[in-house]
């Protein structure tokens, strides 16, 4: 999870590193810890450490972690020569390692040699059939080839065994959303909320899915989850505030005439609107007029 203060720290370090101000290793460690995808920067700065034998020897055993990080970043940037060299160095150090074997498989994937990659992963799975990461690689390979239904099938099989893997649940939810299968996606997000109830972004995604599904009942539940997001973020999530406004208006349109509990919902709506206004005034003063116009339009329609 990326916390607010960690994000600030990451941006500060990134700025510093980009301007040649040192702290490269700290930056790379933070990228690894927060699991953010900054492949181009990791490749550029990680290589600068690896090519400097003095800096590299200072890292001690961490050197190999950096080789792995740079290899993955290079594959992601399609710098296959660099990736190959990194993997070679790792292979020399750890000849029988499955982790290095996985990197080789990923390199094959990046080259588009799907059959070879499949073979490599299968032989790795023969060694250790319970390797979660390789199962995940196989699933993402199906996704990369555009075979989404196979990816869904693989994920479902995987989740039957490893039900506690929330990354996989999130991936499945995102695939379902991309296919507009919102009911299935909602189920995945429910699962995610159960396993990580303090992460506001799962509540938010669930509310988004329910809002998209529509209908009075779903809209009411969506509003509750938007409210939960606001509760968990201290009102600093703009999307949730907009969600409350949109839900209230959609509900008002659906229940026109029989307006029960109208008073309470309009109170919540106006509170969300004022919070939005405050936030805009603080962070983007020139867009306040845009916001008031939008909110006014929503009320009219």
């Amino acid at each position, binding site marked *: 999870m990326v916390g607010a203060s960690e994000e600030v720290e990451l941006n500060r370090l990134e700025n510093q590193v980009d301007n040649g101000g040192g702290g490269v290793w700290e930056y790379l460690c933070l990228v690894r810890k927060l699991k953010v995808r900054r492949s181009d920067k990791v490749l550029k700065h990680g290589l600068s450490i690896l090519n400097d034998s003095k800096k590299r020897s200072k890292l001690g055993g961490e050197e190999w972690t950096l080789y792995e990080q740079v290899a993955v970043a290079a594959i992601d*940037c399609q710098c296959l020569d660099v990736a190959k060299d990194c993997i070679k160095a790792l292979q020399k150090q750890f000849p029988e390692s499955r982790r290095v074997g996985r990197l080789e498989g990923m390199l094959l*994937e990046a080259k588009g040699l799907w059959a070879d990659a499949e073979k490599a992963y299968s032989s790795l799975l023969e060694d250790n059939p319970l390797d979660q990461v390789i199962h995940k690689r196989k699933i993402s390979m199906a996704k990369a080839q555009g075979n989404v239904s196979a990816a869904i099938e693989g994920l479902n099989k995987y989740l039957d065994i490893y039900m506690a893997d929330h990354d996989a649940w999130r991936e499945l939810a995102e695939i379902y959303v991309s296919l507009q299968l919102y009911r299935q996606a909602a189920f995945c997000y429910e699962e995610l909320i159960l396993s990580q109830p303090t992460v506001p972004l799962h509540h938010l995604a669930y509310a988004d899915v329910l809002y998209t599904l529509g209908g009075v009942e779903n809209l009411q539940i969506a509003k509750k989850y938007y409210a939960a997001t606001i509760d968990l973020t201290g009102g600093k999530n703009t999307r949730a505030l907009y969600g409350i406004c949109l839900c209230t208006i959609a509900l008002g349109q659906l229940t026109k005439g029989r307006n029960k509990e109208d008073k309470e919902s309009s109170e919540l709506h106006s509170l969300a609107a004022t919070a939005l206004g405050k936030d805009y005034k603080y962070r983007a003063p020139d867009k306040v007029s845009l916001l008031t116009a939008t909110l006014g339009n929503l009320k009219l329609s």
Partner: protein
Amino acid sequence: MNIGFVIGVFGILILAHATYSTIQYRSYLKILEEEFSSPPFNVVVELILGLVLCLWAALAVPGKFLSIHPDSEENRIVSLPANLDFMIFNHRGRALPTDVNMKLKC
């Protein structure tokens, strides 16, 4: 931290002094051949003072408190990690030009 530490030392000294005065009081009672019912008033005051000072030191010396609120700056989650186990490589970044000069020298 320094002030807290000094206060803690002071508190422990006061507690030690309270112990010493209680022992002294009891031996005094033994000479008078009276029953011990409760420590004298000034020892009780000393004990309470020592307790307060030691509490202060225990809260101040070990370090800063961390927030437990989910919406505080340290705990507020602003983004989820990229799902790196499921990353795929045939994305649009493939079409962008990359720096060809990058090479691993070793």
